[in-house]
């Protein structure tokens, strides 16, 4: 997969969110987006996910224009902001319902994704009883379970303890090694420096490459 972001500007209600962003991203790499809150990291992810449309410029995925040739990237795993699931179902049931939308994977893959994210697939607790860390892990399991070609993770280590952070970083590297294009946004610079193959700083809507 190859993603080309060409001279993209995004304004929302006259506020400049992204300012002439140009990037080329390829499979098998982890791209880290670092920057303070409100700098435009999440908006850049929403743009690549097809959730928002550029005001100017274009996003191409394997040469096809997002928003014109396709509404969303064809194989996408997503964790943006706080994970949100149906509170009255267990974590596994929530993943089953999401997986059922595309029918690409079965019970085995769901169990593996949950285990890899540090969750027990046989846990009978409903989602509303989950701790913040467990909710975050379920969000990551949902993003990776279908082995997407494009993985967008916004603050993937939120609410996780030190061990959990390492576990999730290992999982993200495994996804990269599998061939996925991973974009991870985080305000923790040290963490991203250890994780990303290419590091970008996002500030006031501008994106600049930094040495990883």
């Amino acid at each position, binding site marked *: 997969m190859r993603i080309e972001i060409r001279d993209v500007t995004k304004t929302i209600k006259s506020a400049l969110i992204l300012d002439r962003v140009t990037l080329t991203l390829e499979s098998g790499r982890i791209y880290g987006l670092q920057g303070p809150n409100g700098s435009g990291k999440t908006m850049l992810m929403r743009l690549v996910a097809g*959730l*928002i449309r550029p005001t100017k410029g274009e996003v191409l995925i394997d040469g096809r224009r997002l928003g014109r040739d396709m*509404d969303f990237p064809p194989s996408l795993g997503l964790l943006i*902001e706080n994970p*949100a*699931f149906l509170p009255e179902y267990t974590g596994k049931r929530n993943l089953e319902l999401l997986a059922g939308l595309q029918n690409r994977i079965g019970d085995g893959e769901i169990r593996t994704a949950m285990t890899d994210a540090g969750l027990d697939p046989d846990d009978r607790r409903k989602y509303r009883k989950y701790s913040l860390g467990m909710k975050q892990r379920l969000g990551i399991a949902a993003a990776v379970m279908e082995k997407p070609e494009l993985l967008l993770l916004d603050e993937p280590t939120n609410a996780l303890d030190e061990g959990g952070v390492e576990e999730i970083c290992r999982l993200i590297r495994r996804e990269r090694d599998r061939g996925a294009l991973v974009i991870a946004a985080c305000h923790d610079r040290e963490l991203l420096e250890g994780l990303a193959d290419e590091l970008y700083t996002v500030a006031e809507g501008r994106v600049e490459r930094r040495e990883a």
Partner: protein
Amino acid sequence: MSWIKVLAHDLRCGLLRRRYFLAPALVLLAFLRLGEAASAAGLSPSLGDMMLYAFGGIEPIVANNLRDFLDMPFRWLLIMSSVLLINLDYMLNDLTYSGQQVIVRCRSRSGWFLSKCVWSFLSTALCFAAMLLTAALCDACFGGRLTLESTFELSRLIGGRYITEGFSLTAWQTLAAGLAAPFVTLAALSMLQMTLCLFTKPVVSFLICQIQLIAAVFIKSPFCLGEGAMVMRSSWVAPNSLGPEYAGVSTYLSMGSALAVAVLCVAVGVLKFRRTDILGLEE
């Protein structure tokens, strides 16, 4: 295929968790009042009388009768508003939370929005089914008849001032004016409300629909969305014999125009949603 699965998600999340008791609770209060009044008058209301009472609305407002302008069909407005309130925020709530995971897997914005339209239609149908069940239960409690025919005595009791002796509605007319027309109107208004949510805040879209309902009380036209949902405005109930200003509108024409509004809202919604930014709660 994935569209059907998105619809299944909407039915699961949107129908099973909504506060559907609101609409039947409101009509229950109305039916109890009607039942009491009918009992006091020695009458037994039919199921049709119950529905006419809920969706009676108000007879055509005549310009030279100032009192008419002060009369508002509050019962009708409350019942109509309760259904709109139930349907108000599901689409945006879903989009803000777990719906984002659903829409990227659905991979089609149009498919996702159409699924919400079907949900809105079914949600309105569920409200009506709940109201009808409430009416049937009330009817049974008051020893009424489980038929759709409406009678002159009850219609006068319901508030039809201009109804003449010997008036009655057939079961088919009651079904069309007392059930089908309000349902189609509310389905169209819900669709309008949902489409407006793409342009403005849900509370504003709800208020716009309320203004439309109030406007329908004063504007006499089958093309004014809302008027067809008032049985008292049907040409079957308010015939031309008293003069053109007292005449009602065609129920079928009202239903047709409501359907046209619904289709237009779906088309506008699909086009608008293709360009809508899907943002988080904090954004």
